[in-house]
C-alpha cells in the first residue's frame, strides 16, 4: 500500500551550514511529485532527510519531522525507514561484485531471509515491475555491471522494490542516461505510480512536465512553491518560480 510522506518543518545542516530551511511538504500516494530547482538548492539533501540517509553522512544532521502515513520515521529504525522509503540515485550503483540476481536479492538477504524460492519469486516480481525481467531472465547470474547504464538503473529500481517499499525516491534517476533511455525510465515511473508514492528530483523541466502530477520548486534551501505541475509551469504564483520555469536563471 502506498503511503503519504509528509515533511514538517525540515531543516538540514552540514556542520554549521544550514542548507535546508524549514521545508514542509506532503507527497501524495499514487502520484508523481517532482522537485525542481537550481544546482545546490538542497534537493538531494531534502530527499535524504525523508529516508534518513542524511544521518549516514558525517557532520550532517536534520531537524523537523518526517511522517510515513501516520508514523514518525524516527519511531522506526533507520534501516526500516529506508526499506519502506526506497531510493534510486543519480548514478546507477549496482553492487559491483554481485550478479543481477544477487543485486535484487540483496535487501532480502540482508533482512535474513533464507527461503530460496521465496527470494527467487520476489526477485522476479521486482524485475518485472522494473520492466527488466524479459531482458535479463536468461542471464540472472551475469555480473550486474555488464548491463547498460539504463538497465543498471532499472536494476537499481528493482533492487529498491524488492524490499517492498511504499515510497520511491528518485534523485535525478536519468541524469546520466541517453534521451531514449530517459524516456524509458519515465514510462517506468508512470507505471510504478499506480502502486507507489513517487518523488523525483530532476534538473530537467521538460521531464518534470512530462511525468509529474505535482511539482515543488526549491531555491536556496527553501521550498518556494508547490502545486499541480500544470499550474506551476503556466501560472506560477511566485515571481522566482516564474523566472526559473521560464529559464531566466538556473
Amino acid at each position, binding site marked *: 500500500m502506498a503511503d503519504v510522506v509528509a515533511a514538517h518543518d525540515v531543516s538540514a545542516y552540514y556542520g554549521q551550514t544550514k542548507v535546508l530551511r524549514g521545508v514542509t511538504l506532503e507527497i501524495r500516494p499514487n502520484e508523481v511529485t517532482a522537485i525542481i530547482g537550481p544546482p545546490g538548492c538542497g534537493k538531494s539533501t531534502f530527499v535524504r532527510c525523508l529516508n534518513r540517509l542524511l544521518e549516514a553522512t558525517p557532520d550532517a544532521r536534520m531537524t523537523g519531522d518526517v511522517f510515513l502515513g501516520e508514523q514518525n520515521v524516527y519511531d522506526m529504525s533507520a534501516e526500516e525507514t529506508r526499506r519502506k522509503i526506497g*531510493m534510486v540515485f543519480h548514478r546507477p550503483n549496482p553492487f*559491483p561484485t*554481485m550478479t543481477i540476481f544477487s543485486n535484487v536479492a540483496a*535487501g532480502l538477504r*540482508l533482512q535474513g531471509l533464507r527461503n530460496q524460492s521465496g527470494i527467487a519469486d520476489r526477485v522476479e516480481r521486482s524485475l518485472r515491475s522494473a520492466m527488466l525481467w524479459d531482458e535479463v531472465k536468461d542471464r540472472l547470474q551475469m555480473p550486474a555491471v555488464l548491463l547498460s547504464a539504463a538497465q543498471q538503473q532499472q536494476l*537499481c529500481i528493482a533492487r529498491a522494490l524488492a*524490499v517492498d517499499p511504499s515510497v520511491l525516491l528518485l534523485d535525478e534517476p536519468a541524469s546520466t542516461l541517453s534521451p531514449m533511455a530517459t524516456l524509458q525510465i519515465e514510462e517506468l515511473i508512470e507505471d510504478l505510480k499506480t502502486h507507489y508514492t513517487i518523488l523525483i528530483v530532476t534538473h530537467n523541466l521538460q521531464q518534470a512536465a512530462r511525468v509529474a502530477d505535482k511539482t515543488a520548486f526549491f531555491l536556496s534551501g527553501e521550498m518556494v512553491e508547490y502545486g499541480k505541475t500544470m499550474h506551476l509551469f503556466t501560472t506560477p504564483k511566485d515571481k522566482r518560480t516564474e523566472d526559473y520555469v521560464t529559464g531566466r536563471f538556473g
Partner: protein
Amino acid sequence: MKVQPNLRRIKSKLWLFLWVLLGIVAVLPVISMVLEVVIRGLQGLSPVVLDQVSASSFGGNLIHAVAGTIVITLWTAAMSIPIALMVGVYLAEYPNYRFMYVLRGLVTTMADLPAVIGGLFAFSFITKHSGDGAIMFSSIALSFVLMPRLIRDTEQILRTVPSVIREGALSIGATKRQLIFYVLLPSCFRLLVRQWLHGLARVMGETAPLIFTSFNDQALTLPLSTFTFAKGATQGSLLEAWGRSFLLLIFVSILLLVSKQISRRVVR
C-alpha cells in the same frame, strides 16, 4: 619550410634514443641481479656445496632456514592481517571520532619507520633471553613492520569505494556492519588480498628486525642465514648465501605471482 619537418623528425628520434637508453639503464641492474642470483644460487644449492658447508656448518642447515621463513611468514600473516583489517576498516568507516586522528597519525608514522625499529620494539617485549621463542618474537617483530603498512593501505583501499555504492547498500536497509561485510569488503577483496601478499613478500625478506629476536639463531630464516653466510666470506659460504637468496627470490616470486592471479574478477 622544408627544414623544419626534418628537424622535428631528428628531434623526436633523439628523444626516442634517450628514452630507450634510460630504459636500459633502469632495467639492466635488475636483470643482471636476477641472473646473478639464479646462476650463483643454483650453484650454491648444488649437493656438493651443501655437503661441504654443512660439514663445517656455522650458518645452520638449509631446511631449518626454509622452515623458519615459512613458519614466521605464516605467523606474521596470522597476527597482522586480522588486526590490520579491523583497524583499517575502523579508520575508513568510522571517521568521526577525535581518537581516529591520533590513531591514523600513529599508524602512518609507524608505517614509514625503518623496519629495524619494529624489531627493537618487539625486543622490548622479551623478558627471558634464552630458550625458544625466536619464532614467536620474530613474527611479532615482522608484524610490527607489516601491520601499520597494511592498516594504512586497507584504509585507502576502502576509501576507493564510491559513496554512491555505500548509499546504495544503506538505502535498502543495510546496517553499517552489513554494509561493511556484505558490500565493502567483498568489493575490495581482490585488492586487499593483493596488498596482503605484497606485504608478506616484503617482510619475508627482512633481516634487520630479526637481529634482536632470533636469539642468536643465525639461520632462523632465509634472509638471516644469507646474511650470516655472506659474513663468513669464504668461497663456500658465499655460494651458500647465493643459494639462500635464490630460494628467497623463489618464495617472493610465488607470492607476487599468486597476487597477480587474483586480478580476475570475483562475482557472487
